[in-house]
């Protein structure tokens, strides 16, 4: 499936020559008609490397119009593909990986010493000769941010309908099944119980993670994606808890804590534990503890106030008001206990709103990630139909 190599790699300079008339075809093959599966068996971000090797040749020939034209066509084509597939996680992830890789290449081979510290001597020889593409780097950086925002939007849209039933309604601890507060029936917002179980939610997270890894997206960007997605899991679940009496119970607290621990376990298994994702779940973790602790004496009230450090006073009081005993042996939280809590939390400088902002977005950062790949060793699969490119 590889193009026949007629010369040894060392004879190549890591550039690809093309005729100006073939630019449209190049962009069509590499961007407009590209399907991620077509390059899944090759080096990740192959389209970005091929495009950069074409830019290198135009730079080598000192042809500013050719460089300008290819970069403009590339950026416009990527935008068009993303617009067409604006609800497709795979396409969006693929172009986020490739756009940020092209941006990294423009830095790595810019000739700017700040970006060359990790380069091999061969890579340093491959730096751009004639043009400073700093302004195009800014455009690609802006485009990467746009694609990242689309990726988050698509992933959130897919996960949103799963969260409440997976986190609050599914019974992942078998022994707790059926232990519900008196007077409430099981309520599910899902039509299909199986697809919205905790297992289903975790499976979906795994699909996102696997797809982004396959596309060669930078691990740092993947970590930021999961921090944002876990923030949403926290926000949607907590908001639901704050509005529903039937889930403010000891058993839901237990169930929820178990579900969160499963999510933490998943993060650990994917080496995403340091992403900041767990910290975004802290309000929910504290809410589960609030549902489970004793709520009777003044010292219980003091313990609750030190325990619930990231919940607002309004949220703590609301959960206590909604708290529903499981059976006749468990007491309702008394009005005097809630007053005691209110007194203890009076001095907190909390925001006035009860619910969490589900739309809050963490700022995204794209740290520079140079590649160890040597451009002259890159092979282009014959099935892409790029035989009009000449390796130089």
């Amino acid at each position, binding site marked *: 499936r590889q193009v026949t190599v007629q010369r040894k790699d060392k004879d190549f300079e890591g550039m690809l020559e093309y005729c100006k008339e073939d630019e449209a075809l190049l962009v069509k093959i590499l961007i407009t008609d590209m399907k991620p599966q077509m390059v899944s068996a090759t080096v990740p971000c192959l389209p970005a490397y091929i495009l950069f090797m074409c830019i290198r040749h135009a730079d080598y020939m000192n042809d*500013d119009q050719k*460089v*300008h034209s290819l*970069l*403009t066509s590339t*950026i*416009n084509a990527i*935008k068009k593909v993303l617009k067409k597939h604006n609800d497709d996680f795979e396409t969006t992830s693929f172009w986020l990986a490739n756009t940020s890789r092209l941006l990294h290449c423009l830095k790595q081979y810019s*000739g700017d*010493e700040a970006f*060359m510290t990790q380069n091999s*001597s061969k890579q*340093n*020889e491959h*730096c*751009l*000769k*004639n*043009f*400073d*593409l*700093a*302004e*195009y780097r*800014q*455009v690609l950086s*802006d*485009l990467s941010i*746009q694609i990242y925002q689309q990726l988050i939007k698509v992933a959130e849209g897919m996960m949103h309908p799963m969260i409440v039933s997976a986190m609050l309604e599914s019974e992942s601890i078998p022994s707790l099944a059926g232990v519900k507060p008196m007077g409430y029936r099981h309520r599910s917002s899902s039509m299909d119980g199986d697809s919205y179980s905790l297992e289903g939610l975790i499976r979906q997270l795994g699909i996102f993670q696997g797809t982004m890894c396959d596309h060669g997206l930078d691990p740092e960007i993947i970590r930021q994606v999961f921090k944002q997605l876990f923030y949403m899991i926290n926000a949607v679940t907590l908001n639901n808890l704050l509005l529903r009496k039937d889930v403010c119970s000891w058993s839901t607290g237990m169930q929820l804590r178990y579900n969160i621990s499963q999510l933490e376990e998943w993060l650990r298994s994917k080496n995403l534990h340091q992403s900041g994702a767990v910290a975004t779940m802290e309000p929910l973790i504290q809410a589960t503890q609030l549902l489970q602790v004793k709520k009777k004496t003044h010292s219980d009230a003091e313990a609750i106030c030190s325990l619930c450090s990231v919940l607002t006073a309004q949220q703590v009081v609301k959960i206590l008001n909604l708290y529903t005993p499981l059976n006749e042996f468990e007491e309702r939280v008394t009005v005097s206990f809630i007053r005691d809590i209110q007194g203890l939390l009076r001095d907190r400088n909390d925001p006035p709103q009860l619910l969490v902002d589900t739309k809050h977005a963490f700022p995204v950062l794209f740290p520079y990630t140079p590649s160890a790949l040597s451009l002259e060793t890159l092979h282009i699969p014959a099935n892409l139909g790029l035989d009009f490119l000449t390796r130089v």
Partner: protein
Amino acid sequence: RLPPPRPRVLLKAPTLAEMEEMNISEEEESP
């Protein structure tokens, strides 16, 4: 071995928003 430092010519680029505008007007012009 670093290549000898050599001044590169800054290639001016339109912003992403300007590219979008140019692209829209090109599409409008084409049948």
